[in-house]
């Protein structure tokens, strides 16, 4: 591909400039309908009170950096994965470890809990996503029932079950996302369009449930139609890798966290970025973001070991939480919004409320 003839190069240049000019036009169109800023509209909203959030549980047990975590629908259990290949299921209310499995690879960067609570999925440098049914049978080795589902050509960065235990959506360093049938391992749909590693994804909470958003090293956040595999919307305003994307609870918008030390809010109906959450004193990248249940608060974990809490409407930073002793790599609010959990390179997970 690199050594196409002169004719191809000419076409390439003209294609590139056509794309650029269309991109410019799109920006203009988007700007036309932008008649007010979010913080202006939010002026009449009551300010939030003082926030006192503390670590309520500390989960110790990983021997190395915690890279990813996910909540079970029962609102208490958590699955977490780490650099040394260990994947642990915790009853985080009691801080008991309930299951543990060691993956054959290191840097398990993605893990997810199945909606039924009966299985977990994980993957990382092995380029795969595997599903482990959870069993309490002492005689059974969890690793024995492991099912290899997804196969990528580079590391697995994120995975999520859809509405059932039978489908998994994955994102990979090979620049693609993919939807898989768990039972057969069949590829149901693949999503091409990112120009670099895809680092994160989130499924839309829409009633017709058909889209998801992904973010990557190409600084783009892309919204996909799961059925057709097409990209329906793309946003490119970040200045560096997008580490995390999460939908606003209504499904009309999503937030992103990036290495450029900002979090941003993108509205899908307005088709543009509508808010930036940043502060001069925040220098390090945001690794993971999540909304509280009402969407009023945005929790973001950063690479400088802190967690910043943002008022989504007013755009101001409500609180900064210290506690972790190394970068915060993952953060999720619990399914009923009573707490959020953060995982860190300091080998621990903390539940905050």
């Amino acid at each position: 591909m690199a050594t196409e003839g002169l004719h191809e190069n000419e076409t390439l240049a003209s294609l590139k400039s056509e794309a650029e000019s269309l991109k410019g036009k799109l920006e203009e169109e988007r700007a036309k309908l932008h008649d007010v800023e979010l913080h202006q509209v939010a002026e009449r909203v009551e300010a939030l009170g003082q926030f006192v959030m503390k670590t309520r549980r500390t989960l110790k047990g990983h021997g190395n950096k915690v890279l990813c975590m996910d909540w079970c629908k029962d609102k208490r259990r958590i699955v977490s994965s780490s650099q040394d290949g260990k994947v642990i299921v915790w009853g985080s209310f009691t801080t008991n470890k309930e299951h543990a499995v060691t993956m054959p690879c290191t840097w398990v960067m993605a893990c997810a809990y199945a909606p039924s609570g009966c299985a977990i999925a994980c993957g990382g440098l092995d380029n795969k996503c595997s599903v482990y049914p959870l069993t309490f049978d002492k005689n059974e080795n969890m690793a024995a029932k492991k099912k290899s589902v997804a196969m990528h050509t580079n590391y697995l960065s994120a995975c999520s079950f859809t509405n059932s235990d039978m489908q998994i959506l994955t994102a990979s360093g090979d620049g693609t996302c993919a939807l898989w049938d768990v039972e057969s391992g069949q590829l149901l749909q693949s999503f091409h369009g990112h120009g670099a590693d895809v680092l994160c994804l989130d499924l839309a909470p829409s009633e017709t449930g058909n889209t998801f958003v992904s973010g990557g090293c190409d600084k783009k956040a892309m919204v996909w139609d799961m059925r057709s595999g097409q990209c329906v919307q793309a946003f490119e305003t970040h200045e560096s890798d997008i580490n995390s994307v999460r939908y606003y609870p209504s499904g009309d918008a999503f937030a992103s966290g990036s290495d450029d030390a900002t979090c941003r809010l993108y509205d899908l109906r307005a088709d543009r970025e509508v808010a930036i959450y940043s502060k001069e004193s925040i220098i390090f990248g945001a690794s993971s973001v999540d909304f509280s249940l009402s969407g009023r608060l945005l929790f973001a974990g950063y690479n400088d070991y802190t967690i910043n809490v943002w008022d989504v409407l007013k755009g101001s930073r409500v609180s900064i939480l210290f506690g972790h002793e190394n970068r915060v790599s993952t953060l999720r609010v619990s399914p009923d919004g009573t707490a959020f959990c953060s995982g860190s390179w300091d080998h621990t997970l903390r539940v905050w409320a």
Partner: protein
Amino acid sequence: MAAGPAPPPGRPRAQMPHLRKMERVVVSMQDPDQGVKMRSQRLLVTVIPHAVTGSDVVQWLAQKFCVSEEEALHLGAVLVQHGYIYPLRDPRSLMLRPDETPYRFQEGRRACWDWSGTPPCRRGLVVHRPLPKSPGPQTPYFWTSTLRPAAELDYAIYLAKKNIRKRGTLVDYEKDCYDRLHKKINHAWDLVLMQAREQLRAAKQRSKGDRLVIACQEQTYWLVNRPPPGAPDVLEQGPGRGSCAASRVLMTKSADFHKREIEYFRKALGRTRVKSSVCLEAYLSFCGQRGPHDPLVSGCLPSNPWISDNDAYWVMNAPTVAAPTKLRVERWGFSFRELLEDPVGRAHFMDFLGKEFSGENLSFWEACEELRYGAQAQVPTLVDAVYEQFLAPGAAHWVNIDSRTMEQTLEGLRQPHRYVLDDAQLHIYMLMKKDSYPRFLKSDMYKALLAEAGIPLEMKRRVFPFTWRPRHSSPSPALLPTPVEPTAACGPGGGDGVA
């Protein structure tokens, strides 16, 4: 598009935006007018100029960024951990002490093996001086972003120097490294020792002050590049990203990529957009409506289990519970999706539909969901089952879809796939949402549920705080075939919050 010039020596700065930002902070901290107050620091018998105290650093950061002292201390600590500021007194660990402890800003040097060269900058400011070998201004050498990955040889020389200067100064992990390096570069060990001795000799020719400063700089540099066990490695970045950088070059070069871009932009230009004011208002009403239901914003009754260690909240709000709380029943009125997502809400809605003889609509919708999210192997069977039950003429639970959608669906059923019922499903969903759902909300049934639903009493703070409550575990979903229905009830007027 050519591949571009070779990246300058050192870590690719583009991949570390935080380093550049830290550097900007450090530069402004050294501004002669607006920067941190510099003073001379007496250490043992020498005087070191242009030092700063830990507390001054914290104060300056707090003022400059309008943050609390705690946050300023954290930010300052991060600068120290990355070696941009180094301690003058006993730099065994890189910490920022918010007191009179002296620190200095890391400066420019030519090359780490050229210790006999330039004395440290007198003004404590960043040095921009052209190297004899490489033309152009030189960014500060010791800055983390510009240094090439610290070479083993240099580390060996450093450890050797420490060892020669005074036996026993090597800490445990340093001794291990020293031994390992000795084995590894045994062939070059004479060179290592020679360099070490040479550097020590050259250092003796400098003033005490210079010697001390250089020693501190060096020590900091190695603490950053070879952190002791247990200390976080600030330079670690995790698995390489943009590892498809090579393929990225290919992707951006390909004509297909641009064609796809053009197609995307054309479609995007054609889409309808909504005014920002409308979209943003929607957030206000959404947040306003949901605020009281958000435990982290408004608290939750009887108490937040994570805070009180009491799981009554979860028991009262279990997925299938006999008496849902008032907040929960209210949520069913927020949106149709909210109602369907709650098993209790959905069950009541099904009852309501039953009374109107349109229960098959919900059943059909559920069956379609099962198909959409089901196993691939099940698709043909599920499609058949749905057809038999809901779509076939004379079916037991025949759904009333408009004739055109029915025609298209039946046509599509010839080649069943998991999305073949999408149109029909959407039609029925909209029917329920626009018609049955609003009537449900206005119905006596719903009104009664709302009236019956209670608000839990706030759990009183424990009088004896040292009574230890055992935390109740819940049965794992992986253990049970079906969810357990707890018997906890919450009567009108609120239940007793204490379990």
